[in-house]
Structure formats: structure tokens, C-alpha cells
């Protein structure tokens, strides 16, 4: 079994305050893993560590057996941002955004070759945005924008996809399309790590779940990990009503 992500006893702190400690996680190739935890539980910190934005104070990360920086140079890691993290008025077209997924494989001037254009076209077809390729990003709906960023990750041909709250504010069509794409990517041996609040999505199509609260509380097959005890631990002992509904 190929291991895509291996994090061992990861500790991250910001100026002395601990964001994550002793977090260990191993994700094989070809799986969809949901990462669940409260705000401030360390989900985005783990993403930052996996994208090289913060350096762990202890522990180590391997992606496809490589150090983070090396894996990034191999174009192994794609990050699909939360809509809030992006300036939607930025003057770029859908095509430009998806082409940015190819930059890492281009020369220094980032001049697209035929193969890059094909990859972008193909990715846009898969997310059903080819017709809108010349639209500016600001003219898209929230769901279409989400699909554009997913297309960027597809065009990059990454084997590890990190998605930050992918289901926030998307329409039904986008949600269905994303779920289908995730399954396709899984069958192509991609590993998808989804950070989310939405427990129903996790139950619907995640193979694995990791519960986070400053550390990895529980990790494993969705059916085993999604117990009321684990969830209440992840959400600070007070499972909200939504939560209770999910676990009954």
C-alpha cells in the first residue's frame, strides 16, 4: 500500500502558544479522508504544515515519502482554498486561475505549452466550466468559483488534494459534481483530505475520518470513528444538536 501522507508526532506552535501537538496521521493512496474539529482545533494549522507554510517545531511530515518542499516541487500537493481566503474581485479569468495549477511544471517565464493548455481544458471540462473559461472570477457564483479552484488542482495533476471547507455555500449541482469528482480522483489513487464542519458529508462519502482538537483525537474508518463519545470529545464535551442528530 502506497502511503501518501505520513505525519508523525507533529507539534506546531506560534510564538509559544501551541496549535497542534503530537498529531500523527497516515493516509494511504486512493482514499477520501474527512478532517473534523472545531474552529481553532488545528485543522488549518495541519494544512499549513502540509503546504509548508509553518514549520513544525517537532515531528516530521512525509508526502509520497518525500519532504514537504520536495513533494511540492514534484507538484504532488494541491490546495483548494476556502472562498473567504480569496479575493473574488481579483482581475483574473477562470482560464487564468486553472492555468496557475500548471505553473509549477512550466519554465521560469510560465509560458504555457500545448500540453498545459490541454490539461487546463480537460480540467475545465471535468468541472463543467469550459463554457465560462473567459469569464472573470468576479462574475462566477460561489459554487462555480469552488469548481474553478478544484479544476486548478486537477490541472496540477497532484496526488494529494487538500480542501478547506469545500461544501461551504455551494449549490446542489456543484456539491453533486464535487462528490463524483472525489470518487473519480480516488480511483486514480489520489488522496483527498477534506477539512469540514459538515458531518453529514463526512458520513456520506469519506472512507476515513480524523477528529482533531489540538491533536489527533481519533482516526480510522468512518464507521468506527464516528461515535458519540469521540465526537463529543472533538467538540469539547458539548455536542451541539446537529451533532446529536448525526450520530443517532
Amino acid at each position, binding site marked *: 500500500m502506497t502511503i501518501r501522507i505520513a505525519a508523525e508526532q507533529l507539534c506546531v506552535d506560534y510564538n509559544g502558544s501551541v496549535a497542534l501537538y503530537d498529531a500523527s496521521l497516515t493516509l494511504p493512496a486512493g482514499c477520501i479522508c474527512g478532517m473534523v474539529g472545531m474552529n481553532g482545533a488545528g485543522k488549518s494549522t495541519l494544512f499549513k504544515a502540509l*503546504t509548508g507554510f509553518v514549520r513544525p517545531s517537532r515531528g516530521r511530515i512525509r508526502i509520497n515519502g518525500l519532504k514537504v518542499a520536495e513533494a511540492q516541487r514534484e507538484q504532488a500537493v494541491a490546495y483548494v*482554498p476556502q472562498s473567504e481566503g480569496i479575493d473574488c474581485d481579483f*482581475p483574473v479569468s477562470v482560464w487564468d486561475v486553472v492555468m496557475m495549477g500548471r*505553473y*509549477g511544471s512550466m519554465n521560469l517565464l510560465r509560458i504555457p505549452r500545448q500540453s498545459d493548455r490541454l490539461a487546463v481544458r480537460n480540467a475545465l471540462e471535468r468541472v463543467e466550466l469550459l463554457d465560462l473559461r473567459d469569464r472573470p472570477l468576479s462574475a462566477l457564483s460561489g459554487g462555480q468559483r469552488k469548481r474553478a479552484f478544484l479544476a486548478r488542482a486537477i490541472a496540477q495533476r497532484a496526488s494529494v488534494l487538500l480542501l478547506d471547507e469545500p461544501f461551504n455555500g455551494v449549490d446542489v449541482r456543484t456539491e453533486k459534481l464535487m462528490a463524483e469528482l472525489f470518487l473519480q480522483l480516488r480511483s486514480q489513487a489520489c488522496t483527498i483530505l477534506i477539512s469540514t464542519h459538515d458531518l453529514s458529508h463526512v458520513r456520506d462519502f469519506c472512507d476515513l475520518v480524523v477528529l482533531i482538537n489540538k491533536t489527533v483525537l481519533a482516526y480510522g474508518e468512518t464507521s468506527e470513528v464516528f461515535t458519540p463519545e469521540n465526537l463529543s470529545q472533538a467538540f469539547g464535551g458539548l455536542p451541539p444538536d446537529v451533532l446529536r442528530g448525526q450520530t443517532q
Partner: protein
Amino acid sequence: MSVVALLLEPLRHDFMVRALLISALVGGVCGLLSCYMTLKGWALMGDAVSHAVLPGVVLAYALGLPFSLGAFVFGVGSVATIGFVKQKSRIKEDTVIGLVFTGFFALGLVLVSKTRSNIDLTQILFGNVLGISAADIQQTWMICLVVVALLLLFRRDLLLFCFDPTHARSIGINTGLLHYLLLSVLSLAAVAGLQTVGIILVVAMLVTPGATAYLLTDRFDRMTWLAIGSSVLSSLLGVYLSYWSDSSTAGCIVLVQTGLFLLAFLLAPRHGILCRRSS
């Protein structure tokens, strides 16, 4: 007098030809850079860097070095200081910026008054493009060439860096390098702008054209051309205006820039307030 004559008459003076050329050059270069500044949200940083170069300019004059060198060192140094203080303390970034650049600027003022040299403070603060020396023209050309070359070479990476640094990072692009590249280019452009409009107003050159262009289009390529165009036009028109009206050149250039921004703000096809209201 006909319009043509009105435009040609000032060209009989060498200093006017020089001023028009240099203002247009600096305007174009700052216009290109201003696109990145507005998109990255670095207007305040531009203001900080342009003020912080003052001690560098003074020291370079006193030591007989090219003043662009001193300005560059202090420009980048101020940004490094801002980054360091922000990282090591709990003070918010805009406070740190305000604190650091005024400190540098104050140091510059004290140095000016303590250095026995023929530095003309007004010239540094408010620019003097009509009296620009041959050596300064040469330096400005060099700076502009370097800035344009760097911006063209890294234009796609810089655009991505402004748009989505996390993605840039995750595909292995060195975002730290891009950060300092953009800051270095900013310091250099501030020095070039200092020649034409002076330290106080250079931030207008680094922000206004980009903001104007941003209201007019949703395409980055068009935005850069519009910014360069409006900036060059403002520089030329500003120099003429100052000649005709016998008033501050820097003031005229920036006033034209602000005027063009107001036009875009009111009349831009999609983002102008008048057009938005009627639709």
C-alpha cells in the same frame, strides 16, 4: 495660440523635454508596479518605503555614493524592520508600519540638518523634475530598466503571489523570495518616483494608476496597460500644466492622476458609481 503651438512651445526648452521624458518614464514604470501594489494591498507599504528612504538618500549624498543605493538599502531595511517587529511583538501591522517609517523619516530629517552638504530638502520631499541633473537622469533610467525587467520576468509569479500565495507555496514557488523581490522593486521605484514627485507624493504614483485601472477592467493584462497609460498621460499633462500655470510639478502630476481616478470612479463602465446606479 493654437493647441499645437501650446504643446510645442514648452519643448523649445531643454529642461522641459527632459522633464517630460523622465516623468513619462517614471510614470510608466510606477504605473506598472502600481497594479501589483493595489492588488496586493500594499499602499501603506509603499508609503512606508518611500518615506523610509530619506536617511539613505542623505547618507549616500554625504558619502558621495549614488543616492539610489542608499535609498535602496534603507527601503528594504525599513521593510525588514517592519517584518521583524511585527513577528516579535503583539503590535498590529499597520501600527508597526506607521511607527517604523516615521522613525526612519525623522532620522532622515535630523541627518539633513546635521550634514554639511548641499542637500536641498525641499527637492527630496517635493521633487524637482524640471531641474533634474544628467547624472540623476542616468540613474533613473538604470533603475527603471531594472524594475521593468524584474516585473516582466516574474510577472506571472508575482500575479499568483498577489492572488493566492498559499497555492504558490504549495506548488513549490518560493514566496519569501517573491515577497522580497516585490519589496526591492518597490524601493527602487520609490527612488525613481522621488526624482519626479518627491518623497511625500511618490505613493500616489505607486497606487493611483493601479486603482484607476482596477475600476475599468476585470482583466489583468488590460489593467496593466490602462495603469501605464493613465500614469504616463498624467505625468505628461502634469508637467505641461505646471509649466502653463507656473505651479508645483509634483502637485500637478498627482492632481491629474487623482482627476483620472475620479473620472473612473464616477464613469467606469461597470464599477463606476454613476453607471452602477443607472443599471
